[in-house]
């Protein structure tokens, strides 16, 4: 290849590298803007020209976690000096933290929504990947009548728009009292992710040579022992990748959560937009909430990078 490379090709290579860098910068700009707005004082969030260099602040996060009200009059110097640092940054923004009768700080809705997201995403992931691993092994190693149709059926349930599935689920949940409950959402997300998990895990299982188990069976293992002691350790990477995909899907899900929950079991995705409301939103607080919410997924993306292709295409294409 190098032998036939002309100088114009090398020149084009340089242009391509510059273009790639520019595209990367453009693609990351919105994410950078979320991250930087999350550390801005409120008055710098919506300036023209946009503020790029500024003294980072933690106040958006303090505001994100607490209930606040407008300050009628500025605090006295004594009050200000006596207040802890997190109270002062709120004072600086012309607000104060709301406390109840016992002087306890009132939390905003965000921490409980974040916790709900964690509980629901983790539990549904464990269930979907757990069941999916067994089922994928079953499909991978044994003859199943109508296997192709069954796999299509498993996949097709995931292809429907969430609202289509949500209408009857809403009615059924209302009938059995599962609306706005953690269990209700966990079941929904498990069902939603299970099909994906079976498809992806089947691909990983197919790649584990059958000879490994055969050798174990000859050595006197039962099929169950072979599965747990030979196959599962071999499939560990695949299980981890599948789990991260399921987690991200459940974590990011919006439509089901919007329809099925409103308060007690509400997750972060429907909660964050509901905070914009009317009037002038405080974009620094929204950015802070968004930033914290995106952080786990950003970390996972880096861990997953070698499996992204397979996961995003339902294992249709492998590297």
């Amino acid at each position, binding site marked *: 290849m190098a032998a036939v490379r002309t100088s114009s090709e090398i020149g084009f*290579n340089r242009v391509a590298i510059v273009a*790639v860098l520019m595209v990367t910068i453009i693609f990351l700009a919105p994410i950078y803007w979320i991250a930087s707005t999350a550390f801005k004082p409120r008055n710098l969030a919506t300036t023209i020209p946009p503020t790029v260099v500024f003294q980072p602040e933690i106040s958006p996060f303090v505001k994100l976690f607490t209930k606040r009200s407008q300050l009628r009059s500025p605090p006295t110097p004594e009050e200000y000096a006596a207040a802890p640092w997190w109270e002062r940054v709120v004072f600086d923004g012309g607000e104060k933290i709301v406390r109840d009768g016992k002087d306890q700080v009132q939390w905003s809705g965000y921490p409980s929504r974040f916790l709900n997201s964690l509980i629901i995403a983790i539990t549904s992931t464990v269930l979907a990947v757990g069941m999916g691993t067994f089922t994928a092994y079953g499909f991978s190693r044994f003859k199943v009548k109508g296997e192709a149709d069954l796999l299509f059926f498993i996949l097709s349930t995931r292809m429907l728009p969430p609202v289509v599935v949500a209408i009857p689920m809403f009615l059924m949940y209302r009938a059995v009292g599962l609306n706005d409950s953690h269990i209700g959402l966990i079941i929904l997300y498990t069902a939603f992710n299970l099909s994906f998990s079976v498809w992806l895990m089947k691909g990983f299982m197919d790649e584990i040579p059958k000879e490994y188990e055969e050798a174990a*069976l000859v050595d006197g293992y039962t099929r169950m022992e072979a599965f747990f002691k030979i196959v599962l350790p071999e499939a560990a990477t695949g299980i981890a990748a599948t789990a991260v995909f399921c987690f991200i899907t459940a974590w990011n899900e919006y439509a089901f959560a919007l329809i099925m929950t409103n308060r007690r079991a509400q997750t972060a995705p429907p909660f964050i937009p509901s905070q914009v409301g009317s009037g002038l939103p405080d974009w620094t607080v929204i950015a802070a909430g968004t930033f914290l*919410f995106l952080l786990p997924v950003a970390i996972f993306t880096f861990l997953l*990078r070698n499996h992204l292709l397979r996961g995003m295409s*339902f294992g249709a294409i492998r590297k």
Partner: protein
Amino acid sequence: MATTMITTLDRSSRAAARGLSDISIRNLFIIPTVLFLIVFNIFPLIYSLGYSFTDFRASTNAPANFVGLQNYRDLLNDPYVWSNFAITAKYVIISVAGQLLVGFGVAMLLNRDIPLKGLLTTLLLLPMMLSMAVVGLFWKLLYDPSFGIINYALGLGTFEWLSDPKMALYAVALTDIWMWSPFVMLLSLAGLSAVPKHLYEAAAIDRAGPFYTFFRITLPLVAPILMIAVIFRTMEAFKTFDLAYILTSQPTTELISIRLYKMAFQEWQTGRSCALAYIVLIMVLAITNIYVKYLNKVKER
């Protein structure tokens, strides 16, 4: 073949006598999942099929009356619903075409020796992993006419992205293109890296021009994977709800999912929304069927 071999091997081994038979293990592994999916995915759909023939409203206690095919007839004669389908089709075309162009273009640029290529690729993939609803919300600030960075960066003054009914759908599609071009890029990269190098060498020896090489070698060989990307993205774009629902409330961006949501959970026309859900479901199943057939064909190669 290999499976039967294991089975025979299993029968002759002593271990098989101790443990469960292969058939019971297969059933134990597969049946619970299939049952779970039937209860939580198929049963609800049967339930809503029943309601689709009634005038049921979930907001009242009035019993549902059987109205036969009335809901379906009304929906298929409703120009409003047809316009929702038309908006959805327009959105799918703009958004998928945009993703295809940007995604494949970036993949072509990336498909060479570049320092830090792995890192750049991973960074480029970040948008599609994020929550559409949450990131979509932030795009409202980016699109803001007076202090959004998009207008500032492009020097557009106070251009109305989301409040202009004509522009709003394009703005939603643009955000979708930003989120999902990386997906097309990822698939294209896989396709491009699978093109045998010797074809390019042969083309270079034959003094083939870059256009000839692209249209006669690169494109035909990457086409199957691009097709997968297109079908996949078409299905996803057809389902779009979050992004459009959060970014605007313009009637010009009312995709079919949003119409369905409003009908079911704001107007509480439960029976009719079940019927519309079925119309959508049949369309999705048709596309899915094509997709899976195609997928199996590609996989066989």
